[in-house]
């Protein structure tokens, strides 16, 4: 029985130490992301695809997916829509 009490104490300590450590570790990771990664994202944004416009071939739509200007127009429309929706 005494042995069991001893085990209980050990398990309890392990539980406490373990949870504190997991929280500290992941909490530190939160800090790292906020302090280092997020500013990094601002400093090095993903390269924006430059719209490749060849003046003479405006009519030929690019066959590889949607052109960036269309995407930009749609995103602008979506964000306006979202903002309007939020207010109402």
């Amino acid at each position: 029985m005494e042995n069991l009490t001893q085990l209980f104490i050990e398990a309890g300590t392990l539980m406490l130490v373990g949870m504190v450590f997991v929280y500290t570790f992941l909490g530190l990771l939160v800090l790292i992301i906020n302090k280092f990664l997020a500013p990094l994202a601002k400093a090095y944004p993903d390269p924006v695809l430059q719209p490749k416009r060849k003046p003479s071939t405006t009519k030929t739509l690019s066959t590889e997916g949607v052109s960036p200007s269309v995407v930009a127009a749609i995103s602008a429309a979506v964000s306006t829509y979202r903002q309007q929706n939020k207010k109402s």
Partner: protein
Amino acid sequence: MELLNTLWLSTGLAHFEFGQVVMMSVGAILLYLAIVRNFEPLLLLPMGFGAILTNIPLAGFTEAGGLLHYIYEVGISTGVFPLLIFMGVGAMTDFGALIANPKVLLLGAAAQLGIFATLFGAIALNVIPGIEFTLKDASAIAIIGGADGPTAIFLASKLAPELLGAIAVAAYSYMALVPIIQPPIMRALTNVDERKIEMEQLRHVTKVEKVIFPLAVLLMTIFFLPAATPLVGMFCLGNLMRESGVVDRLSATAQNELINITTIFLGLGVGSKLSAEKFLNVETLGILALGAVAFSIGTAGGVLMAKLMNKFSKTPINPLIGAAGVSAVPMAARVANKVGLEANPHNFLLMHAMGPNVAGVLGSAVAAGILLALVG
């Protein structure tokens, strides 16, 4: 006549022991769960078949010289297979949702309560006659609460190899049962208004962040918890291969062919541990019971933490995503999404729940490292 007798003695029928028959039925049940119920079939099918092979009399699959013996010794007792799988999981994981909203890492931490509370529970089971769990056994059982198959197998092979079969069966069965275990707990701990909470759209995460993230995680693990570096290191390697974008071939191999090959062997190797003398005892029942408790406490821990964070956070946090902190990627995130949709049909929580979900993978790897460092 003597010839007939010899022939009879070389048949399986003459040598079947009761325990072997029971264990073959256990194997058959696993096959049933995999094929008919679609419960984690990728692992339960080879595992169930391995259990049948292991218990064939005279065939000697698990004795020295037997196929399953070597598979186990080469891949599982060394920890190689679970680590290779972890690399593949890393190559399949997108940390974008987590980097965009890093505070959900705390939900992944909270859900590890399931692990450490179960550790306590496993020790408490020692009061039942017939059950004797040491602290090592208890730690290996508790990791079921991490809801992460490879982590559970890795830790069990290091701390309590004799319990590995039961632990793996419990871990994968309960992972398949996540959609049944979690929702009642999630509903009980939240009210309808909380479940309706809509979260803000996640910001865009750049490639630079995604490439540096696995390196940052690895660096932290090197500094603070080297015992977890086998798991975290392989995970980060897989993730870096994915995000760097320069080794697409390796990344594709890690998340397809390699993980598939390893899964076959891992399943067979774990199945080889399902022999009568190791599986048919009170301890297995205890492990199965503790596994369910571990999942439930983990879910509750995540949901309660999310409720707490919602009170103090500037941006709203739907408590349901806390339940995804138990890892079990991506099932737990889907469950959070589904329960959220029941309360508010326009509320898609899937992407928000993926954050705590992958945080849970990191959390359980860290927890496994702690247990290895302190108990192993």
